[in-house]
């Protein structure tokens, strides 16, 4: 198969780095690279997904531009990652969604929100719409719980299937046996590395953004975003359990677990992405893949929208604004779910899998070293 320009360039860079190796202590990419002499497309995709874009190898490299060797590892690996998302997309027909991703996601979101507003308006008598409501079940007066569960359950299922298919495509591409995914040691290692963003630390001092001064900003905001998202997810899960196991209906009181989790999570997915966006705006352009900017921003914006509408709903749920806010929030969350497999969210999945493989490779290499 003809290699894309990005893969060809990544191959050139990895050949240079492999003969230099000065960056081998910075992250997992370089030790993984050193285990190979030549690089297949799958190898390059694997290395690209191991990269956390901390920027250290750009700021530390004696061959970064204006040097004629033009070594820009973070930017080129970002480009490769971006291209690979479309390659792994399921169903194939939706791969083009990655092309003008910012626009695509914006359109889907607007349509989704519009559908919820119109839907809620259509299914509720004009006299009850925009009325202020109180107490348990007030959301479901507007939209029946079963309808909500069905709709979101379907969206969730769709996303889950698309992720699994994407993950399969990635695993096949990098040529790793599926058995690796069942081994506890690499899995645990990868969970630890991913949860701590171990490789976004520039080799220990923090990552590099606008200049050669390291800072830990991006890691901090990424943590807010990621754990914020997890808390929101946990909130929804707890609420679902409440509903079915305890027969307790939302909205819940402020001190109740789903609300506490959701509030903390909501704050995380509002502040985190804003911080990441601010860092992105200041970032040295030579470290970035300009082509994926739309996708990055769209995903950050989606998270902020979902978080902000959720928090607003919490604050104003006793007022007449509730109906509109509920429609907005449900629309945003629905759009987030259905677009997740076709946007920046997937980086987390492939990065995690790359970390699993890296943990396996490291372990095998250590065993081999011990036995010889």
């Amino acid at each position, binding site marked *: 198969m003809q290699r894309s320009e990005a893969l060809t360039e990544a191959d050139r860079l990895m050949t240079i780095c492999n003969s230099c190796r000065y960056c081998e*202590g910075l992250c997992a990419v370089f030790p993984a690279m050193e285990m190979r002499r030549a690089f297949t497309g799958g190898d390059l995709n694997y290395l690209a997904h191991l990269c956390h874009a901390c920027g250290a190898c750009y700021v530390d490299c004696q061959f970064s531009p204006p040097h004629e060797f033009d070594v820009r590892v973070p930017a080129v690996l970002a480009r490769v990652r971006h291209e690979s998302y479309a390659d792994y997309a399921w169903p194939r027909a939706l791969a083009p969604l990655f092309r003008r991703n910012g626009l695509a996601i914006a359109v889907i979101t607007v349509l989704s929100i519009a559908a919820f507003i119109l839907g809620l308006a259509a299914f509720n008598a004009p006299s009850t719409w925009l009325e202020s409501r109180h107490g348990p079940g007030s959301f479901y007066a507007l939209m029946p719980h079963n309808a909500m569960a069905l709709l979101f359950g379907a969206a969730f299922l769709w996303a889950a299937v698309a992720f699994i298919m994407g993950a399969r495509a990635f695993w096949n591409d990098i040529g790793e046996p599926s058995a690796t995914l069942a081994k506890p040691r690499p899995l645990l290692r990868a969970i630890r590395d991913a949860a701590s963003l171990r490789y976004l630390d520039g080799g220990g001092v923090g990552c590099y953004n606008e200049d050669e001064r390291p800072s830990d900003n991006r890691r901090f905001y990424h943590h807010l975003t990621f754990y914020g998202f997890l808390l929101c997810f946990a909130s929804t899960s707890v609420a679902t359990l409440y509903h079915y196991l305890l027969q307790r209906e939302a909205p819940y009181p402020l001190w109740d677990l789903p609300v506490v989790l959701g509030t903390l999570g909501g704050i995380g997915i509002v502040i985190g992405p804003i911080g990441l966006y601010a860092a992105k705006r200041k970032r040295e352009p030579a470290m970035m893949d300009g082509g994926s900017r739309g996708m990055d921003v769209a995903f950050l914006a989606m998270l902020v929208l979902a978080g902000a509408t959720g928090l607003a709903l919490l604050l104003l749920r006793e007022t007449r604004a509730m109906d509109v806010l509920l429609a907005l929030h449900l629309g945003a969350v629905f759009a987030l779910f259905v677009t997740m497999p076709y946007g920046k969210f997937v980086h987390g999945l492939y990065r995690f899998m790359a970390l699993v493989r890296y943990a396996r490779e490291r372990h095998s290499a250590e065993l081999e070293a011990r036995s010889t």
Partner: protein
Amino acid sequence: MTPEHVIADHPLTYDVVVVGGGNAALCAAIAARRAGASVIVLEAASKFYRGGNTRHTRNMRCAHDAATATLSGPYPEEEFWDDLLRVTEGETNEQLARMMIRESKDMLDWIAEQGVRFQPSLGGTLSLGRTNSFFLGGGRAMLNALYLTAERLGVDVIYEAEVVALDIDTDRFRAAIVQQPDGRLRVRGNALVAAAGGFESNIDKLVEGWGEIARNFLIRGTPNNRGTVLDLLLAGGVDSIGDPTQCHAVAIDARAPKYDGGIITRLDCIVFGIVVNTNCERFYDEGEDVWPKRYAIWGRLVAAQPDQIAYIIFDAKSANLFMPSLYPAIEAASIGELAGKLGLDAERLSATVTKFNTSVRDGDFNPDILDNCRTENLTPPKSHWARRIETGPYYAYPVRPGITFTYLGVRVDHEARMMMKTGGPAQNMYAAGEIMAGNVLGRGYAAGIGMTIGSVFGRIAGSGAARHAAQ
């Protein structure tokens, strides 16, 4: 340079003026500033290219009594001294060298205190894990850390500030004249630290020592080390040390750029093949010793060949035994075809290979030790790792002399103070790094000593200059 060319005076008079921007300069600047002096660094390069050859370095050699987090075992002073004595074949100032080795024990901690980070001790890849500490992220990362520290301490730095003249009154430095993009600037100081590197990037100066053949040399590092400051100092009455043709020169890929190709153009496959010149003749024992030990002799050997070029020839058996490098090897299905691609005479090359092959005595090939695969009745012999070149495809790398740095420099005393031709030390002029490396390294090289010389003498020069300026 006459004063009329000076368009402006720097408003400040600094205690210490540091010329250069590499490891030696920054160690001096930081040490002087920490001793309370006001300090300015004048760096000829732009911000990106700051730090000359230091940008390309990877590690530093320091004596130490026990293994540390970054070093796999003890490296006593005496062993360091033995290593230095062996590579220089006695061409070293014993008093200065022993002092440097003693001081080097303290350097790793000191450098780390300035923000430089080291890698955890490596496994054997480079067999330097015991003697040398590796900078995390390499030399440029190390420089970035030193610059951040210097700036934080309040050292002034100007880039694109090439020193083109020195105002020296007998044995006393008064000011440096700096060429900047928009004109000239006079920077006055109470003391000078010259840390402006050697003269390896000045081909005309190399030609003075080596003759015209030097035009075919490639320079592995910065194009900025042109020896301007060295010349100015020697013209100003400072005594010199060293031989203009002594330098660190290795064989690097002939396709490398003229300057700044750095580490990735080196080739460490010589021990696995044979090396021929344009007449298809072998000219040295390729298997004399393990690669790191004999690495630094091949620059000189290739420089002595016609057109200053040679070719490493090996076969498929050896293709994966060495570190990959920047350019792919030239490949062919037969030795004749390979000769064609290299522009060599096919018959002659085949004859050389055949003769080599018939002289090979089989043994147990082992790339990690001095094995018993050698030739018999062949001149020059190949004493180890000799294996017949008979398994296609066949490969070649063209190589040229790659100059790392030069040894002719200014003579200094144990305080890093420059010595005058008239005898006795200068009043307020100090030197550190490549520009005075010849005091310790008269010839030869041991990996990581460039950084040792720069750090140790840089720190001594910086504190000495600060002390002097305070008087």
